[in-house]
């Protein structure tokens, strides 16, 4: 049997064998599935350009019959405080990321390449802390912030996340792979440890840092839980938290509602489309979604 299929005469009708038909069907099914995955986005963008009464129209069409896109987006960006919400999200995400990198990189380098007493305990603590989600520590952190009167501030929004035990773990593993001989040679050449970190380790760690940055940024942009607890006023509201307002008839203009949903989710989706590999690597790094 195997011999016959190797002969040239068998090759031309190979294309019509169920195997290749199966392949076509698989492709079609995969694209149908992809349509289901993408449809909510198409529906959202389409609705964001419609007048209210057309959003829930029985005969749905992707192209709006009456185009209200300009009014809807103008309303969201200039008449509602969405620029403030987006800015708040940016400030919080960038702030968290910078402090995370500043605290994690030095600690990770010390844990990877320097000998000191207590390093094993510290590393063990880091590993244990990775499993502790914000949902567990939120009560004492909240009470603490209430006590010092810092609720509803950028500080409160960033505080639980400014040290990332995951980043320390990740960078430590990465730095350990850096050859000791190069570090020794640099020390002999009179490099200080700080210079070694800045000029040797950091450049080599760019892929890990980039992936972690994406992970951190996306996670905190999309976070609903913690802002819901510490943010009280509209001036500190993040873009994601602002979506909560719609459960209480914040806006009865449905077209504009979906324009605001588009504005909130667009930054991450667009960034993803521009840096796909980096995003996929960064977001799936921990294995736990969200």
């Amino acid at each position, binding site marked *: 049997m195997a011999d016959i299929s190797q002969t040239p005469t068998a090759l031309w009708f190979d294309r019509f064998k169920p195997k290749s038909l199966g392949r076509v069907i698989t492709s079609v099914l995969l694209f149908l599935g992809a349509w289901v995955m993408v449809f909510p986005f198409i*529906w959202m963008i389409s609705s964001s350009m419609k007048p209210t009464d057309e959003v*829930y*129209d029985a005969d749905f069409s992707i192209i709006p019959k009456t185009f209200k896109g300009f009014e809807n987006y103008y309303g969201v960006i200039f008449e509602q405080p969405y620029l403030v919400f987006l800015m708040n999200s940016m400030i919080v995400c960038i702030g968290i990321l910078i402090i995370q990198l500043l605290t994690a990189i030095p600690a990770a380098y010390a844990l990877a390449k*320097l000998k000191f007493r207590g390093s094993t305990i510290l590393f063990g603590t880091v590993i244990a802390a990775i*499993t502790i989600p914000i949902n567990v520590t939120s009560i004492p952190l909240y009470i603490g912030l209430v006590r010092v009167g810092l609720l509803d501030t950028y500080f409160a929004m960033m505080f639980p996340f400014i040290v990332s035990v995951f980043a320390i773990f990740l960078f430590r593993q990465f730095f350990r792979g850096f050859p000791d001989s190069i570090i020794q040679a640099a020390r002999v050449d009179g490099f200080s440890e700080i210079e070694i970190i800045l000029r040797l380790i950091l450049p080599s760690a760019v892929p890990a840092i980039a992936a972690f940055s994406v992970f951190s940024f996306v996670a905190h942009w999309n976070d*609903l839980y913690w802002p819901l607890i510490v943010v009280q006023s509209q001036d500190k509201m993040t873009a994601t938290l602002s979506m*909560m307002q719609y459960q209480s008839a914040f806006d009865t203009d449905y077209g504009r509602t979906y324009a605001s949903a588009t504005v909130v989710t667009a930054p991450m989706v667009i960034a993803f489309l521009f840096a796909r590999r980096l995003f996929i690597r960064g977001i799936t790094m921990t294995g736990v979604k969200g």
Partner: protein
Amino acid sequence: MAASKLQRAQTRLAYLLVLPATLLILVIYIIPILFVFLGSLTDYTLVSDYYEFVGFENYQKMFGDKVFANALNNTFFYAVLFLPGAFIISLIIAIAIQEQKQFRSILEVLYFLPVTSTLAAMALVWAALMDSGQGVINNTFQLFGLPRVNWFGNEDVVLYSLAIISLWSIIGFNMVLFLAGLTSIPKNLYEAAALDGADHPLDKFFRVTWPMLGPTAMFVAVTSSITAFKLFDTVAILTQGGPDRASEVFLYLAFLEGFEYFNMGYSAALSLFFLGIIFLFALVQALFSDRNVHY
């Protein structure tokens, strides 16, 4: 002498480098965990400064509480709906996409898109798609002669609806994890299996793919379980636990007790229970990944 002086300088520097992170871990993790534990032994509420130690009363209350049992039930029921899909659908799509030649990267992007999007915003879109009156899904159902479904208003349906949204948001994520596992399977194993007569795709799957995918499969199963237990965003935005507590899942209950009713002591007990579950999953993962990783 010079070497040990250098050694000492290095040690001093090491302490300096770990100091900020160590202090923050202390303030953000260690001390709060201790307070959660102590707090769970008190009747502390944020509204009054007076509180007493009540021993294990909060835990007794928890295990006798119908609301807690209900939330746990809901969470498990939701997990039973969500997990098989999150695992099997993602695996099938990963295998199918891996065999694609020209469409692989576009399909990967399309399936991954929901993962990067803001679930809180997309939940509003799902609310509209699943609207009981004029939602696209019900309209489509009608077109095919299926009954209209009250997705969020019916107690018996609401967890299915939430599971569907969660599946939509996680399939691309698990697919990528599976794809990574699939790509690392050496090609010659398939050739060897083919020589042994494993020609049928199902044969190939059960003889090569599945055993080689062990560690990845374990990882996906554990992390998806944790994700299932952390269901929060869509509940907070779409149902607030309703109708009639039918979608009140564990984390949402802990949130309500702590930050709506300010029963901090009781909520602390719930938090520790939650941590226990997470540790259990982490333990399972550690045990299995150690055994399975050496192929």
